[in-house]
């Protein structure tokens, strides 16, 4: 009850993310941004560094690479990526906060930074302690099963089967309590009344292998991360965790179709610079990263990852709004879950 009240207030802003691919491409017009921008006092006079708080092979590592290449393509300024994985992004963020606010070091981070701040306000607030340059990926989640599964074939039969297992059905998910994935699963189990055991897998490959090998009954994931399994026909989605199904998944039931009444949470990835960075440098970085979003190479990358199915682009103000709404939403959810919100 409280949960619903809490999230309704933020629903409109997040709901705006569920635009179609066409809208995403329209955002790429970015008509208000100049095609070129003079370097303020010669900044940057050397290569930039980008701290990535995750490994090079995962979603963050890949988007960091795609964005760095697009920025370099556009500005001819090199970006050296520095991966500092560990602690669900904590290590990289802490290392970044210790760097000078001179604009030469930028940060890639995901919504985990917002949810960590929501739980513990002593953690950096990405909307205040950092300046978002651009949010370049916003995506939704789905529930997947094996295509050759014969115990259930779609969402209704899956729910029915899970209920019959009396809590013994399993789904592969990430491990961190309070994460977007775990909170969303709580929404689903609360809304359907089904009990399902979540199996914690930190890394993608073992998680996908668990479903492919029949170790678990279902998988919670974002479509871009399992695209190869969808294209090869190994996995199929049975629920899209969005109010309305995007065209690419028109035949997969959405939350509305499935009669699930909760506001979806999103995975988002973006690029930041430290608060306190000279304003003229921030402006140049905002221009470079927002303009790079529209580079052909970056758009091709986003498309390959199903990141154009909903509106992925947010400029600085849009990103702050997204982060603030996300923090507020998670705070409400955490309190409702009985977690200690500091």
């Amino acid at each position, binding site marked *: 009850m409280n949960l619903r009240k809490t999230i309704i207030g933020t629903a409109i802003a997040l709901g705006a993310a569920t635009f179609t691919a066409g809208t995403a491409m329209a955002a790429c017009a970015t008509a208000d941004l100049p095609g070129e921008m003079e370097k303020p006092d010669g900044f940057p006079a050397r290569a930039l560094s980008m701290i990535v708080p995750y*490994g*090079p*092979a*995962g979603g963050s*590592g*890949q988007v960091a*690479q795609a964005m760095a*290449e697009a920025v370099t393509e556009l500005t001819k300024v090199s970006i050296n990526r*520095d*991966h*500092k*994985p*560990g*602690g*669900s992004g*904590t*290590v990289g*963020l*802490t*290392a970044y906060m210790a760097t000078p606010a001179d604009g030469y070091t930028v940060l890639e981070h995901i919504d985990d930074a917002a949810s960590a701040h929501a739980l513990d306000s002593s953690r950096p607030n990405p909307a205040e302690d950092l300046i978002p340059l651009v949010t370049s990926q916003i995506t939704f989640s789905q529930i997947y099963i094996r295509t050759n599964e014969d115990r259930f074939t779609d969402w209704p039969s899956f729910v029915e089967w899970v209920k019959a297992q009396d*809590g*013994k059905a*399993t789904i592969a998910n990430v*491990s*961190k*309590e*309070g*994460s977007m994935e775990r909170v969303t699963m709580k929404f689903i189990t609360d809304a359907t009344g089904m009990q399902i*055991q*979540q*199996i*914690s*897998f*930190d*890394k993608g*490959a*073992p998680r*996908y*292998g*668990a479903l*492919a*090998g*029949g*170790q*678990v009954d279902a998988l919670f994931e974002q479509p871009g991360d399992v*695209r*190869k*399994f969808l*294209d*090869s*026909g*190994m996995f199929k989605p049975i629920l899209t965790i969005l109010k309305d199904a995007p065209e690419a998944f028109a035949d997969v039931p959405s939350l509305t179709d499935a009669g699930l009444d909760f506001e979806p949470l999103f995975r988002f990835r973006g690029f930041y610079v430290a608060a306190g960075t000279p304003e003229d440098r921030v402006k140049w970085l905002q221009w470079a990263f927002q303009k790079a979003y529209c580079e052909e190479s970056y758009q091709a990358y986003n498309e*390959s990852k199903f990141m154009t199915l909903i509106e992925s682009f947010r400029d600085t103000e849009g990103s702050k709004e997204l982060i603030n709404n996300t923090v507020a939403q998670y705070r409400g959810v955490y309190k409702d879950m009985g977690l200690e919100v500091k």
Partner: protein
Amino acid sequence: METFNNFIGGTVTLFGDPIGILIFFGGVVGGMLFGAIPGVSMLTLAAILLPFTAHLSAEHGIMLFSVIYCTGVYGGAITAILFNIPGAPENAPTAFDGYPMTLDGRAGKAVGAAVMCSAIGGTVSCIIMMFATAPIAGWAISAFGPPEIFALVFFGLAVAASVGAKTFWKGWLSIMAGLMIAVVGLDPVGGIERYNFNMPYLAAGIHFIPTILGFFAVSEIFVQAEKKATGAYKAPKLSVDFPTFKELWLHKIAVIRSIIIGFFCGILPGIGATLAAFMGYNEAVRWSKDRINFGKGKIEGVISSETANNSATGAAMIPLLALGLPGGALTAMMVGVFQMHDMEPGPLVFINSPDLVWVVFAAMFFANLSILLVGFLEAKTIVNLLRIPFQFLAPMILLLATVGSYAVRGLVIDVVVMFVAGVAGFFLRRSGYSVAGIVLGLILGKIGEQTFAQAMQMLHFEFTGFLSRPIALGLLIAGFLTIAGSVYGAFFKKEAPQNNNADADSTV
């Protein structure tokens, strides 16, 4: 016959193009060199090269990475043997016996064994990969879930307790110390922070690469420095006396066993060559009639470890190519190479790009064979580094280890961890504890805790669930029997407990 024809086709494509040949040999040499430098591993080379592969054809890009993978896993053996610095975690067990062989003037034999066995392990697993990628991949992920992997880790730890320590208790205490270090950081179930004392950097846990460099390289420098100060130092004798075929033939069973172990570990997503090397070594200890001499310079230790870790390379390509599941960091980067060329590894790659698959298979086959040729030439040269006097060599090793620790994540705390481990290792070795056991506990502990938590969730928190999974049950029984055997050996047999006569300055 079709496989053979495909292989010939892949070979012709590989060597019929001068650019392909250049990339192939660049990968062979680059993998060996980067693999040999601690911290700056084949992963560093792969990360540097990743953006450039966009400018190569898909065949060349993926072939380059697969070649680096094969030769990089071997490369770390050389520094492990000559200086007690494993180039990568999968070479750590190689140092257990390889370095004592160097101190004993048998560096050439150890390096030669590493070259031969890396080539054999890699080539055989590559051949199996060519014939049976799809069915093996499907079987592996169905048969080996978290309960089976946990049971495998438990079995490995049970055997490992007997490696390198003076007594039964010191062996187990060493393992337990490693397990304790492994629990620092986020727990694998709820992401709860443990033992990080409000230090954000420790939230990621203690990384095993600086720990290995500290326990092995730094503590060894302290040990040798102490000897130098007390006049007990003896420079290792230079030797380029490679093992004969007959010598290696005597250990054919160890080679076959390690190929099988390495292969099974390699095909499990997220496990890979490190567990393969440790398990290969452990099994060599377990089945040996001369267990007490492991850790003191038995060539069988080098053979087992190097065969197993290279055997894992071909195997790791199976889940990658057949299912799109990378087994480790390098194979995960290979996914990136595929994606740069608008491809995804997985079942469709065999249908859509069979030529590419067979170029990769051929490249890996010849990369493993070239370990023999280039490896021997490299070894003949690099062994001469032992001529450098200790007072010059020690600072170089310390510098390399420091750079290697820092390079892992660019964090100073990793360098601090390395030096703390170095000092701790120095005193622990003097007291008869096993630094190998600690490192093993750390590496297997992380995998073991995660898979135990997953297994418990899957089995609905009932231990009896293991009884319904025959492979897991078999491995657990084998682990308990191993523990029972070592307890019996330590307390009821008349002979001295395991390794009771180990030197105080045993290298592991």
